């Protein structure tokens, strides 16, 4: 790997809900074009970490820096800026239910980036074609399959030209036969050099895409390293044990 620029830097994130501490000081650095995969048991803090990076959930302490500039989390303008530059893909898609696929993509372009109607639609059609939904632009979320919804969600986020993409278990809510189409889109993004942090249980994404695997447990990053270091034959790591159990459950059919 060449010495790429650091895009995103997260330092000492803490978050608790009531007495329940979810994140106990998580730090990570993301370089341009890098793909990190977060794995670990449920409740380990993966989703909360991603939500904190996008400030959907405000961390109690810790800093988030984009291109070396620390974001002031109290300043709403800076927050909105951060969220535009760091895209988020949710497990449950979170498409806007009252808007068509096309409008789902155009609304943020028009309201947040102040595109004209015509140029927003042009951009949106382009993004939807990229994810293979050029013929579904006028359908509402209720008329789309899970895989199609997730692809619209990806198109919607990409239309904002994010520098980093956070993916929170993008395939977990999908029927098994629909997982493939979403994985194909994510792999195409990776091939284009998109910088990503992804929480996933999909073995094919972990071993195929990740340059760096972070194993999260009890609110800390317990292990990290390349897939080879953590998942190579004969390695006695916790990551290895966890992935073996995933494979035993039959999810590793890649």
């Amino acid at each position: 790997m060449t010495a790429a620029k650091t895009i995103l830097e997260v330092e000492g994130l803490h978050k608790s809900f009531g007495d329940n501490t979810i994140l106990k000081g998580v730090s990570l650095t993301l370089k341009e074009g890098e793909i990190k995969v977060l794995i670990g048991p449920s409740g380990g803090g993966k989703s909360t970490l991603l939500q904190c990076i996008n400030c959907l959930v405000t961390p109690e302490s810790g800093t988030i820096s984009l291109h070396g500039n620390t974001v002031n989390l109290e300043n709403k303008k800076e927050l909105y800026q951060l969220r535009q530059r760091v895209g988020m893909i949710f497990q449950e898609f979170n498409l806007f239910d009252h808007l068509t696929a096309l409008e789902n993509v155009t609304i943020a372009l028009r309201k947040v980036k102040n595109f004209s109607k015509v140029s927003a639609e042009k951009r949106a059609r382009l993004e939807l074609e990229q994810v293979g939904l050029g013929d579904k632009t006028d359908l509402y979320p209720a008329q789309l399959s899970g895989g199609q919804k997730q692809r619209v969600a990806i198109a919607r986020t990409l239309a904002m030209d994010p520098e980093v993409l956070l993916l929170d278990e993008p395939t977990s809510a999908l029927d098994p036969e629909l997982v493939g189409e979403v994985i194909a889109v994510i792999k195409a993004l990776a091939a284009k050099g998109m910088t990503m942090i992804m929480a996933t249980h999909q073995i094919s994404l972990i071993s195929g895409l990740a340059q760096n695997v972070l194993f999260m447990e009890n609110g800390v990053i317990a292990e990290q390293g390349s897939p080879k270091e953590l998942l190579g034959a004969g390695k006695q790591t916790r990551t290895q044990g966890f992935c073996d159990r995933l494979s035993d459950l039959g999810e590793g059919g890649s």
Partner: protein
Amino acid sequence: MELSQFYQDLLPALNKGVIMSIALIIPSALGGVCIGIAAGSLRTYGPKFIRKLCDGYAAVFRGTPLVIQLFVLYYGLPNLGIYFSPYGAAVTGFMLCSGAYQSEYVRGALLSIKRGQYWGAQALGFSSFQTVFWIIIPQAMRRALHGCGNEIIYLIKYSSLAYIVTCMELTGEGNTIATEYFRFTEVFMMVGLYYLVLVSCAMLILKKVEQWLHVPGFGHQES
């Protein structure tokens, strides 16, 4: 066939009354919906102080009889130097009362929108206001439509209270003829019929609005 003197007096009076009723109902309904959306949104998302203030408004106007509210507006406020015409007092009272009820429907609908919709917008860089205005309210509006429509239908009927602050609408005009001729049954059955027609028209309009706002996935006519 020549109508009797009674009907010759009754029908023009009721027609005049129904026009006044409509003139009361339309601004009250529109104002009520606007107040309801504003108060409902503030009660759900507003800063704490404003939320409490709006809660207080809803509690007072839902918690006291409309007749009392109209009496205070028309007979009470002049003591403080605030004068309303009968029409003004009635429309103001209806708007405030209807708005309080509407705010409850709006609030319920807003709370029923899943958090994911809010997050989806936030993650794209929407401000909180933009999220509520462009994403949450359009969805909540569709959920609240049936409740709000119901409230408008109530409003049509409680508009009959305007005549007690001397605003002569349908019920008031009917009452005058009824006491003049001492024929209560016919008069009030006719008045009832007029209200039935008004409500039927309102239901028709609401049905149209519902069809116009229909989005697949927002329940009805879906298999």
